[in-house]
């Protein structure tokens, strides 16, 4: 009877709300139209250096370029001279929006010795000076002349970069999801042990969650099936600040940057009704992320600082049969969604997030890099950084957090590339659209002090908060001064150092249970 009355009220409310919804949707689309961005071209290029090592035969390595703008990019590949050459993807050509091109670079030494050169990938009509002329550094060594390797001609792998690079480029751009401060990368997913692969673009780089999650609509046709436990299919629900993801757990082959292919369980977020409906135990009444458009990404590359996604704590696992799913509190270790970084054979103790400084007015598109590993290669060596130890007690409310003092109050805080602003409760005017972003009349200069947990390290972070409406009304998508309320309160109760924090910094993020020259994880150092 109780349920009946609830449903009746639901029916009434839906009836009333349909009218209001129509009006609001109209207003929202009007405002989107008013903010249409001018067209632009932007190239994401990686890797920017190719090391051929000591060549005993002719070697080929690959550079991947991608147009992350919304008009054709006019690409000019300026080839190197012998012993390097471009064997595919060279010359001048237009690259359509969202399209990728692999450029094959060959090293065919004719004498002994080390040789270095540069080549360039230019984009005549790109929107930033940085991507109008990207220099690629080439280096190789030889003990003498080499011949074409016997056997098959090397073909490009679908891996971004296609080398043994640990560098994953990502782009902060409003294309295609029209969102600000989202770092989007490309990775490759294959049905295990096959060449049925798809490059998944626009995957959100997220240090605030753990595990790879891809919408099922991006994986159709690959032949990826849910993992099974006897006759049950494994389902999973993961909880985020804005809602939940639901779908099957599937073990797949994953290629990220030039790291060796890993075979790991991921979550296939079910946006195509290929899996039983989410049980109510999963949703907890929160909203499921329904589609890439609704979520603002095609998938999540969760690089958070634990080795898996913590069944029963951070996530719930289910055994599904037919259309019914029941909770499984003891999923098999082979079905638990893993941190991809922890799964690398090397470079597995953390990540380095690097983003350039940007103008106070923001940028249309800005490229950053995730380097896998800390202190494992020449490109991920920590220089002089302060190490902020994070709470390593899984039972603590501040697990994986540091402490931050703002306005005389101290609370837990975390670093999160997947948050699109600096979020904290402060006495700053919020925007009138109820979005929770800050809209001060003029840009504010603020500061907060970060403190390590368990050590005396601390440091002041100076930041600015601009009017979010003005930022959103500009043509830009990357901002280092976008801020908002953390949870709608008037009292400081936590700091989410979102993507704006990372501009102009190189941040070392160590995984719990690992160590590096910076000590034992979890820590964040910059």
């Amino acid at each position, binding site marked *: 009877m109780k349920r009946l*009355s609830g449903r009746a009220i639901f029916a009434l409310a839906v009836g009333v709300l349909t009218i209001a919804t129509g009006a609001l949707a109209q207003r929202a689309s009007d405002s989107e139209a008013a903010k249409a961005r001018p067209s632009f071209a932007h190239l994401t290029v990686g890797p920017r250096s190719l090391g051929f090592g000591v060549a005993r035969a002719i070697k080929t390595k690959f550079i991947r370029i991608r147009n992350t703008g919304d008009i054709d990019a006019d690409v000019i590949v300026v080839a190197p001279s012998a012993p390097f050459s471009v064997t595919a993807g060279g010359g001048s050509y237009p690259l359509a929006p969202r399209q990728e091109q692999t450029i094959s670079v060959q090293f065919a030494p004719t004498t002994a010795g080390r040789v270095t050169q540069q080549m360039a990938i230019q984009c005549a009509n790109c929107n930033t000076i940085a991507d109008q002329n990207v220099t690629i550094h080439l280096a190789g060594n030889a003990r003498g002349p080499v011949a074409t390797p016997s056997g098959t001609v090397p073909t490009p792998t679908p891996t971004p970069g296609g080398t043994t690079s640990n560098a994953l480029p990502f782009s902060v751009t409003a294309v295609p999801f029209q969102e600000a401060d989202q770092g989007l990368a490309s990775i490759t997913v294959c049905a295990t042990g096959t060449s049925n692969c798809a490059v998944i673009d626009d995957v959100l780089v997220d240090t605030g969650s753990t595990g790879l999650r891809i919408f099922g609509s991006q994986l159709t046709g690959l032949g990826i099936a849910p993992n099974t436990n006897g006759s049950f299919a494994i389902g999973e629900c993961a909880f985020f600040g*804005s809602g939940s993801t639901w779908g099957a757990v599937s073990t797949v082959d994953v290629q990220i940057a030039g790291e060796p292919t890993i075979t790991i369980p991921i979550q296939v977020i079910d946006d195509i009704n290929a899996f039983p409906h989410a049980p109510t135990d999963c949703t907890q009444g929160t909203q499921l992320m329904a589609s890439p458009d609704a979520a603002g990404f095609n998938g999540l590359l969760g690089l958070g600082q634990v080795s898996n996604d913590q069944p029963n704590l951070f996530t719930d696992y289910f055994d599904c049969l037919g259309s019914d799913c029941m909770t499984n509190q003891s999923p098999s270790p082979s079905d638990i969604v893993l941190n991809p970084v922890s799964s690398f054979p090397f470079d597995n103790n953390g990540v380095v997030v690097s983003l350039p400084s940007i103008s106070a007015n923001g940028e249309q598109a800005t490229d950053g890099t995730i380097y896998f590993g800390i202190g494992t290669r020449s490109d991920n060596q920590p220089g002089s950084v302060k190490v902020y130890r994070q709470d390593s007690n899984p039972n603590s409310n501040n697990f994986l957090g540091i402490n931050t003092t703002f306005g005389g109050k101290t609370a837990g805080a975390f670093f999160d590339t997947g948050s699109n602003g600096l979020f904290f409760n402060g006495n700053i005017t919020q925007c009138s659209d109820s979005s929770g972003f800050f809209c001060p009349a003029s840009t504010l200069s603020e500061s907060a002090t970060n403190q390590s947990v368990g050590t005396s390290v601390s440091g002041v972070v100076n930041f600015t908060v601009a009017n979010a409406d003005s930022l959103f009304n500009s043509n830009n998508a990357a901002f280092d001064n976008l801020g908002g309320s953390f949870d709608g309160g*008037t009292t400081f109760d936590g700091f989410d150092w979102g993507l704006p924090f990372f501009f102009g910094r190189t941040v070392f993020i160590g995984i719990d249970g690992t160590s590096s020259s910076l000590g034992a994880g979890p820590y964040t150092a910059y």
Partner: protein
Amino acid sequence: MNIGSIGSRKLALAGVLAGCFMLGLAMQALAGLGADATSIESDAVAMQGKMAQSATRQPEPSASYNVKTFVTSKGVTVREYAAPSGAIFGVAWQGRRPPDLSVLLGSYYPEYVSASALKRHKDLHHAVIAGPNAVVIMAGHMGHLVGRAYVPGLVPSGLDPRAVVK
């Protein structure tokens, strides 16, 4: 045809409404936001939770409110805020996952569901969902989630729900 079908739907809705109204009177069926403070324990039961302390707060001479706290079986701490009249005007939570909002938001759950679909700025780790009557704010990274919801129209005068409900 169309007019007829709308008319008959209205009638059906009126009938359902009348039934619902009577049921409501008989059972105090609704819990969560907007319900009476006496229903908080049933919210705790619905989430297999345990009641913790109960307190009356008097932040200003002009207004007071009651807070009841319980912890759900999933370890989420939930606080419900009731006006002197008994009406629950706010709920707040903290835990590794969200609490069951279909219980906590009570009769405001449907408007939250509708308003969720209109959310403009997408962010993985934050959501502000302002419906016609209730405001729901959620935030946090995986494993540490917080949120609060309140009905401005039910907040006792003199209280700022943004300061109180937390």
